[in-house]
């Protein structure tokens, strides 16, 4: 047992460091993009269109990961694309978490009519196909960073609300809650001091998961051409373009796709890693 536990711990530690490391790298790219990017991400040069990456035949020095059909440098565009990805991940993820977790906590702990209203809202929300809903919202709000963030928050709060509500309900049935009442704690006090610490690990896992999802939603919206203005380099926009020319220039699709893949994976693993490392019950 001791052995298995150590193994789990080591794996969890590795997971935490790898995922945190990759996200730090993306963050660094986002911050330093104007200085480290070898080229202007918007600079077009039709003579340099569809250059392959550096290890293949027919490359130009300096275009490490090749260029797209308009001759824009793929690496520079990925570095700049990290900015929007990260902004969306952090802001949309955090806002969604705050709103969804609060509603879930209130519904699950207070029960009664609060729960009735929130549960009904969740039911209605869950009956919408989320991707279609987000596309619709962007059509209403108009493209742009703020619209994307609003759309993500409006659609994804139920992810938190559902899980946190169920968890809070389960915790609410435990005797430590009754014990807090016997000690004279108020309802809100009990919710914040007793229930919240027990739901927090779940919230953290959901939060980092949501950050990854936010990046994907942005990519999906770029893919259907509804995200930011078409000029700004985003990973989703690059992927959309890469998809159309996948038979001619696969690298235009592959590099942003791998970046996106790793980032989403890192976000999802970060939460689990943090929980394994810092949840007192798992120590």
């Amino acid at each position, binding site marked *: 047992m001791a052995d298995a536990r150590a193994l789990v711990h080591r794996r969890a530690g590795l997971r935490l460091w790898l995922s945190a490391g990759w996200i730090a790298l993306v963050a660094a790219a986002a911050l330093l993009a104007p200085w480290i990017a070898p080229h202007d991400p918007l600079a077009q040069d039709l003579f340099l269109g569809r250059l392959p990456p550096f290890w293949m035949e027919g490359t130009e020095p300096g275009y490490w990961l090749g260029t797209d059909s308009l001759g824009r440098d793929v690496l520079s565009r990925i570095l700049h694309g990290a900015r929007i990805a990260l902004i969306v991940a952090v802001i949309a993820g955090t806002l969604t978490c705050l709103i969804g977790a609060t509603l879930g906590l209130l519904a699950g702990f207070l029960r009664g009519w609060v729960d009735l209203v929130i549960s009904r809202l969740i039911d209605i929300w869950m009956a919408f196909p989320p991707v279609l809903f987000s*596309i619709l919202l962007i059509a209403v709000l108009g493209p742009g960073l703020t619209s994307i963030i609003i759309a993500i928050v409006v659609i994804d709060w139920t992810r938190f609300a559902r899980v946190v509500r169920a968890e809070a309900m389960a915790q609410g049935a435990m005797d430590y809650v009754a014990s807090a009442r016997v000690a004279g704690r108020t309802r809100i006090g009990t919710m914040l001091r007793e229930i919240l610490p027990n739901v927090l690990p779940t919230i953290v896992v959901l939060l980092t998961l949501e950050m990854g999802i936010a990046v994907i939603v942005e990519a999906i919206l770029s893919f259907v051409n509804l995200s930011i203005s078409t000029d700004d380099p985003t990973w989703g926009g690059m992927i959309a373009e890469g998809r159309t020319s996948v*038979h001619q220039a696969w690298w235009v699709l592959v590099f942003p796709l791998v970046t996106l893949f790793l980032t989403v994976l890192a976000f999802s693993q970060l939460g689990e890693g943090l929980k394994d490392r810092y949840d007192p019950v798992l120590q």
Partner: protein
Amino acid sequence: MQLLRAILQRLLTTAITLIGVAVIVFVVVRVVPGNPIAMMLPPGATDEDIARLTAQYGLDKTIPEQFLIWARGVLHGDFGTSITARQPVLDLVLGRLPATLELSLMALVIAVILGGIAALTGTRKRDTLTEAGIDITNGMALSIPDFLWGLLLILAFGVLVPIFHISGRVTPSLELPFTTDFYLVESLVRLRFDLWLDIVSHMFLPALALAIPLAAIIGQLLKQSLKETMHLDYVTLARTKGYGENHVILREALPNAILPTLTLVGVQFTFLIGGTVIIERLFSYEGLGNMAIDAVINRDLPLIQGIVILFAVIFTAVNLVVDLLYAVLNPRLRHG
């Protein structure tokens, strides 16, 4: 009696949900900027033309009035007329529905098979490296959404090793003898295996992309549930009777482990159906989702409404079916 009450309760909440969806989509759609009527007329149309058409589609009335008119129509099976296609919304939507249903169900089948295998293997080989491998694979499959899987599959099996089609529902040059829109089913019924293979080759990658996250969820939940069940006394008792591991897993543990998994899989299946929207776009698959995105881009209000309502109906129907299945499979509800 108890069952009847539960059913009534479900129908009531379902009705509330559907009305809620209808109201929200109706309002959201009507604040979309841009005049759809102006978009559909040729340049140079007069203001009068626009006003006439606007009135024809009822868009000059207030939103509550429009809603009531629309709701009355819906109750009579009339979902309005598509602005771009100028055909009844219901016809358009029902024409595309079979494509999306076939895709979703194929994805579900793949997910159940893959997830089931993962769960059973993981349980059989629990506490070994095999189980750890399954856990890691599941974890990855779970944290990457269908959209990314779709792209990766396009690269892997459409470009790198091109063994599947990555675009469309069927090769356009083929002659189709079908009378329904259920191509996959009808090709089988007509014993046209050449067509069937072509259709499967088109559907397989999008279905797999949709299936992977669900397979991971089934694998994870069912395995967890199986492992918990394996610790229960009736499983231990079966071992002492002389039964081997496979028998114990399949006959004693599995029937009980499926139940808790089933409810969660129901919700996840609605997510899968929601995922068809973007996956159909990605694979240029002619289904509801693809149509929905076009409808949004073209500001085709009646069509958007119709599609969203249809999705909501499908989702609630899936949940109802899952609840029924649960009741059928659970002896506690079936008897007494």
